[in-house]
C-alpha cells in the first residue's frame, strides 16, 4: 500500500535540505495582519484582500442576485472556489502561513461539497464527476457557459 506519511516525511527532509542550502526562506508577510472580506463580498468585488482592494472612480460592484435555486447554489460554489483560489495564490508565496492554510482548506472543502451537490442536481461541472455514470452522456447534454449554462 502507498505510504503517504513516508512520502511527506521524505519530501519534507529533502526539501528542507534543499531550501537551507539555497535560500533564506524567511516569510515576507510575517506578522502582517491580513484583513479578508467574506467569500461573498470578496467574490462580488473580485478581491478577497481588503488591503489590496481599490475602486475605479465611483463604480461599485453590483450585488449578484441569483434568479433560481441552481444559480444560488452556483453562486455559493463560486464564492468558496474564489476564496480558496485567492488563498492559493497567497500560499504559493507564503507556504508557511498555517492560519491561511487552515482557511484555504475550509473554503476548498466547502466548495468541493457544494460542487458534488450541484452535480447531482444539475449535471457535471467536471469530466471526473460521478454523475457521468448516468445515461445519456450528461457532459454533452448540459449547456456551455457562454450560452448561460452553469452561470
Amino acid at each position, binding site marked *: 500500500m502507498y505510504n503517504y506519511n513516508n512520502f511527506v516525511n521524505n519530501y519534507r527532509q529533502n526539501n528542507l535540505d534543499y531550501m537551507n542550502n*539555497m*535560500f*533564506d526562506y524567511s516569510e*515576507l*508577510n510575517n506578522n502582517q495582519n491580513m484583513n479578508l472580506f467574506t467569500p461573498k463580498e470578496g*467574490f462580488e*468585488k*473580485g*478581491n*478577497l*484582500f481588503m488591503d*489590496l*482592494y*481599490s475602486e*475605479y472612480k465611483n*463604480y461599485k*460592484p*453590483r450585488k*449578484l442576485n441569483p434568479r433560481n435555486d441552481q*444559480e444560488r447554489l*452556483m*453562486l455559493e*460554489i*463560486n464564492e468558496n472556489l*474564489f476564496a480558496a*483560489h*485567492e488563498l*492559493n*495564490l*497567497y500560499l*504559493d*508565496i507564503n*507556504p508557511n502561513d498555517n492560519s491561511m492554510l487552515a482557511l484555504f482548506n475550509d473554503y476548498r472543502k466547502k466548495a468541493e461539497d457544494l460542487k458534488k451537490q450541484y452535480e447531482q442536481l444539475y449535471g*457535471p*461541472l*467536471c*469530466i*471526473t464527476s460521478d454523475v457521468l455514470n448516468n445515461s445519456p452522456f450528461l*457532459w454533452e447534454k*448540459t449547456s*456551455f*457557459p*457562454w450560452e*448561460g*449554462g*452553469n*452561470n
Partner: protein
Amino acid sequence: MWVYEKKLQFPINIKNKDLRMAKYLVTQYGGSNGELAAALRYLNQRYTMPDNRGKALLTDIGTEELAHIEMISTMIYQLTKDATLEELKEAGLDTHYTEHNKALYPTDSNGMPFTVTYFATTGDPLADLAEDMAAEQKARAVYENLIDLTNDPDVINPLLWLRQREIVHYNRFKELFEYYEKILNKKS
C-alpha cells in the same frame, strides 16, 4: 495538465447586443495587454523560476488567465451573436466578418492579430517578474478605458471584477519580485 470546469469564474449574462463594445473588448482577448498574452507569458516563464514559489504562482495565475480568456470571449460572443450583417457593417466589423464570420479570433481593437511578440521570456526571474508587474498594470489601465466606453451594467460588472484581478496579481508578483530580489541580490 489541465482539467476543464464547465462554468465561468464569474457569471456573465449580457442581454443587449453592442457591436462597438465587442470591437473594443476583443483587445483584452488578443491585444498586447490581453488575457491570452498574459496566460502565455506566465505559462512560458514558469519553467525557469528559481524555486517552487515562483513555479507555483506563475502556474496558478497563468491558469486563472485561461479562465479570463473564457470570460472575455463569452462577453464578445454575447454582445455579437444576434447581430445582422448591416449592423456588423455599421460597427466596422465587416472586416472581421470577411475572414471569421461571427467566430472568435484573437486580435486587438484595431483588428491586428495576436502575436507572441507581445510578451517576453528572459530566464531571469527579476526581469520576467518586472514584465509581469507591468503587464498587470497595463491590463488594469485597459480595463478602466473599457469601463469608460460603456453604460451597460451587464458589461461593466465583469470588467470591474477583471480589473480587480489585475490588482491582486500585480501585488502577488510584486511580493515574489521583492522576495527574489532580497535572495538573489543578497540585499539586507
